């Protein structure tokens, strides 16, 4: 827990007592995809499809506590609101910045307590919260937004989140009207459609006698060259461009049977099936010239009409069906609806019994080796923007100190 925390809650630090009190913002964590933020008010309820939760039950609990719903059928966790959680629960008024970009930009710009910074536009305030936390308690954030409604919403949030002392929010079209700040800040972040229009004013806003860093955030490649040109023309140096993204892994445990174990298992299944019922294989739709064979259940050729359509689904792959029971693959598919009317080879005449017997086959007989694997789910967040960085150099301070001294001594 923070030593300097005050008991008025702020997203920029923790509360010293780490206890939920009336008026606190609390993140209701149901699952990674289901989080929301509330302000605790005695007498109110938080309702979701997994149950109802009484605010007054939360008061006095330590942050992080698991809380049961009124019925006891559901539960959630009461989390302390951090800028990182805020990014996950905030109401989207615009595209927002996520942790990959937020983190990299803050690191590159070397943000730390006590610095002054410009952000434009404020947007949904996702990045603003992280900046404020990092500059707190002595630094300051100037944030600009041209959209009045967004300004109003953000203003309210900064107040409710205990950040308004260190954030100045202005409604302003910085591309047209500039920042109206001179010799003031250490770092500047521009998330604007045409950042090049704000570069001249940005230059004036930097503390003039020290080094400063600027970052522009542009999704499209066409924005890159115009920004570079503007930065170049205004004397910024060391232009660097990055893309950064995070890959969130799914972790699974899958069994790995050797082919011998799998075959042993399959032979056992086959034996049982033979005992249970004589096997008849039919393929009524088989219009090809190749043999229909009753004995092997397999033909040596693939024919146009062969329609085998097992779906290897995820659960198949990762647990149950990944045990060597793919012998029963086609039986299993019977349980799934297929929209084609083509019969599945070998599936018709197999009695239910055999499939059932497979299910009761003791799975423990052979122990597969388990392997922990990762998978990147499709549709993760990909590209967000190109991050362009440049350096503002302090005004040249005339001759260097040594030269000044030399001049002074020779003047003696």
């Amino acid at each position, binding site marked *: 827990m923070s030593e300097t925390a005050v008991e008025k809650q702020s997203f920029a630090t923790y509360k010293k007592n780490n206890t939920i009190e009336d008026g606190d913002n609390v993140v209701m964590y149901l699952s990674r995809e289901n989080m929301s933020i509330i302000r605790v008010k005695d007498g109110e309820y938080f309702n979701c499809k997994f149950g109802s939760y009484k605010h007054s039950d939360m008061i006095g609990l330590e942050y992080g506590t698991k809380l049961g719903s009124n019925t006891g059928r559901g539960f959630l966790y009461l989390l302390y609101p951090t800028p990182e959680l805020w990014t996950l629960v905030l109401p989207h008024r615009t595209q927002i910045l996520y942790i990959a970009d937020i983190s990299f930009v803050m690191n590159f710009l070397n943000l730390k307590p006590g610095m002054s910074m410009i952000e434009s536009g404020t947007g949904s305030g996702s990045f603003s919260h992280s900046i404020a936390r990092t500059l707190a308690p002595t630094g300051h954030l100037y944030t600009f937004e041209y959209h009045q409604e967004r300004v109003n919403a953000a203003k309210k949030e900064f107040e409710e989140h205990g950040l308004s002392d260190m954030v100045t929010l202005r409604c302003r079209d910085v591309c047209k009207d500039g920042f109206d700040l001179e010799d003031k800040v250490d770092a500047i972040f521009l998330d604007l459609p045409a950042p090049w229009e704000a570069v001249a004013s940005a230059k004036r806003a930097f503390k003039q006698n020290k080094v400063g860093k600027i970052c522009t955030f542009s999704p499209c490649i066409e924005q890159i060259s115009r920004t570079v040109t503007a930065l170049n023309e205004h004397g910024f140096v060391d232009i660097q461009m990055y893309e950064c993204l995070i890959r969130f892994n799914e972790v699974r445990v899958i069994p790995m049977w050797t082919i011998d174990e799998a075959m042993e298992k399959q032979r056992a299944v086959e034996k049982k099936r033979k005992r249970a019922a004589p096997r008849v294989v039919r393929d009524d739709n088989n219009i090809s010239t190749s043999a229909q064979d009753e004995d092997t259940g397999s033909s040596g050729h*693939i024919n146009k009409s062969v329609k085998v359509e097992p779906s290897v689904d995820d659960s198949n792959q990762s647990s149950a069906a990944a045990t060597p029971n793919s012998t029963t693959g086609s039986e299993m598919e019977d349980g799934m609806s297929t929209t084609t009317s083509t019969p599945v080879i070998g599936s018709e005449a197999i009695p239910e019994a055999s499939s059932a017997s497979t299910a009761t086959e003791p799975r423990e007989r052979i122990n597969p080796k388990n392997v922990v694997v990762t998978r990147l789910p499709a549709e993760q967040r990909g590209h967000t923007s190109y991050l362009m960085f440049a350096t503002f150099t302090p005004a040249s301070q005339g001759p260097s100190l040594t030269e000044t001294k030399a001049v002074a001594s020779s003047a003696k």
Partner: protein
Amino acid sequence: MAALNPSDIINAGEHVFIKMPSDNVKCIVLKAGSSVSLGKFGTFKANDIIGHAWGNSYEIYDRDSKTRVYHPEGISEVEETANNNREIVDDPSSQKLTLDDIKALKSEGLKGELTGEEIVNKLKESHATFDKKTAYSQAKYLQKKGKKFHKVFTPIKPTAYSVNEYFYVKNPAKIRDIRMDTLSQLLSYSNVHSGCKLLVVDDTQGMIVSALAERMGGKGTILGLYDGDNPHYDIVKYMNFNQETLDTIKVLSWLRIHRPADEKTPDEMQDVTQLTGKDLEGYHRRLKAYNIVEESRKTLFEGNFDALIVASQYQPESILEKLLPYVAGSRPIIVYHGTKEALLETSTWMRKCPDLLAPQLTESWLRKSQVLPGRTHPEMSTWGTGGSLLTATKVIDQPVQAALTKRERLAMEKKNAEAKKLKRAREEAESAAPSPAPVVSAEDATNVAIEEEEVIMTTTITTTTSTSTIEPIDDDNESRSVKRVKQE
């Protein structure tokens, strides 16, 4: 005009992917004379596209399901304007038409009473803040609505690429996450070509077998080992292969590689001379099936395969151990798995195997970009896992011994010396050009301590070194330090 192959034309009875206005792709079997419903986008007559070349888009333009070739207008350049969406609040109520109005429009469109353009124009006119949008947003809005209301569809030809893309997007687990780029690399590493002989264990529902067969063009042999009752090569049917190509694919059950003790030939089971009618027919069917299995066995035991490709849910090394002997020298061994982690143990196993050279574990990275004038950028969502490849080369291990007589060695050394001399002379000529500046050494700094980190050689360390012979030069330098490639 160049002569067309049957595969250049949309044929009746084949699988066809239909890309719809929504960008969704549907797979259909195109039956001659049928009508194909695309749901709310309308219906077209199969015969309107059968016999045509692939590649065109079609618009359904009236109630009678008439189609015509649709020529897209192309993407037009859109410039940034001062009109920058600032005034727009995300508010669906800016559309003045009610939901019912829009439904009515849609149904008129379906009946063919309104064209797509007309509907979109109506929407546009009734959009309160449309004029305030930037030109770009306007274009985007119209494109979005246009896609929905224009009944344009595109038949896409099934190929290894398009089939793979279709399933990768729709159900990646079915094909065990193998993505177009990873599959393409598998094809390269396999050196598949017309006329080669491949040994394959394919748990990707035949995705890999399909791609290999396409590259062989009807010449050569693929022998697929399968477990379970049937080879699960569902994907093959989507490829519209001709019989010649289908005949290149042979299969053999893992359980029937070696003839089971209780397996009887049809002749052992029945005395053919005693059979008549239905029984005789059955005998001949069984005989044919039996012969096919026998032929597959023969193909396997003859060996000399040009590649071994394993994409299995089972432990890869247990499969490699069994199948490596059937592969010819200097041929690729490829193991695919949906996750890299599942190949780690196999990779260390390969290192210890004297018959395998230079195992290499790779993953592929693929990114697609949105291409719009003025708005080009990588896509905002990524592909998932694309799978991982472990590749190596089958080699013929043998004891190494000195092979030269003394006289031979002397002659050789003389020759070498001359070659060296020549080379040095050439190098000297080249070095006349300005050479790149070497890194400043710390010794130059006399007045100030320049701190140097120790430069430490990175070498790959394996806990168990190869059991065989010398092993000096080879793999222990896997830290494949690709030279920093500078672009002109």
